[in-house]
């Protein structure tokens, strides 16, 4: 049993959500732009 478990899990859940969101948004931005540019050329 982890002491202060709820604090630890909440912090990790927020951290991984922020990282996943950053990765997803950056990747989607790259995909969107490269599709736009490939249709432009």
């Amino acid at each position: 049993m982890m002491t202060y478990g709820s604090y630890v899990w909440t912090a990790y859940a927020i951290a991984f959500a922020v990282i996943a969101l950053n990765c997803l948004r950056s990747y989607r931005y790259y995909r969107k732009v490269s599709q736009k540019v490939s249709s432009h050329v």
Partner: protein
Amino acid sequence: MNRVLSWLSQWVSPKLFFIKTKPLMRILPLLTFASLISGAIWGLWYAPADYQQKDAFRIIYIHVPAAFMSMGTYTMMSLAAISSFIWRVKLADLFIKAAAPIGASLALLALVTGSIWGKPMWGTWWIWDARLTTELILLFIYLANMMLRTALAHNPAQAQKAVAAFTLLGFVDIPLIHFSVEWWQTLHQGPTLSRFSKPSMSPDMLWPLLLMIAAFSCVVFLTVLWRLRADILMTEKDKRWVREEFA
């Protein structure tokens, strides 16, 4: 000297930068995922609990890397700002644009995870302590940096100059954050990683922390590279090399 200049030139040319970083985009997502998962497992289950803070100390494995990289990202932005301001290097300006939202999210993450750690240890979610306040100022500097670019979007040349100058001014906050725990009396603990020869942590606890810092560095490089490469494509879309890339 000529070899150094030609090596440097490949990193300031958008075309060469885009082509040279292409292979990285295959390895970096895997490396990021593997280091994050292994670092988190090591920190959560295999690193020993602290004798005073018990398991709450495990928040260090996300809080310190987030804070470290929020400062590291701003330092890289400041270096880019020098080349953007003095030599008008377009790629440096694009780097500042790509890195600012990532750095802002890490500064916010450092504040939120620090607050979650502070509640059970200090008995409060927030206190106007020197370290916390200077990190909050860093978040505001990131936000102001992005707002300044948006406000001057109608004049890209002026935006490049103004953002570079603002980024350099904002760098003042980085040493303030670092030395805040030494210069002022604070609730925040002293530096953990400033002395590698004599760290204030046991190696069992230190190694997973170093792995998580490497993992967060990978996250920054991966996300900034995706954004930067997209912005390079946008600004260079009428160039021949872009047409050849997509042919």
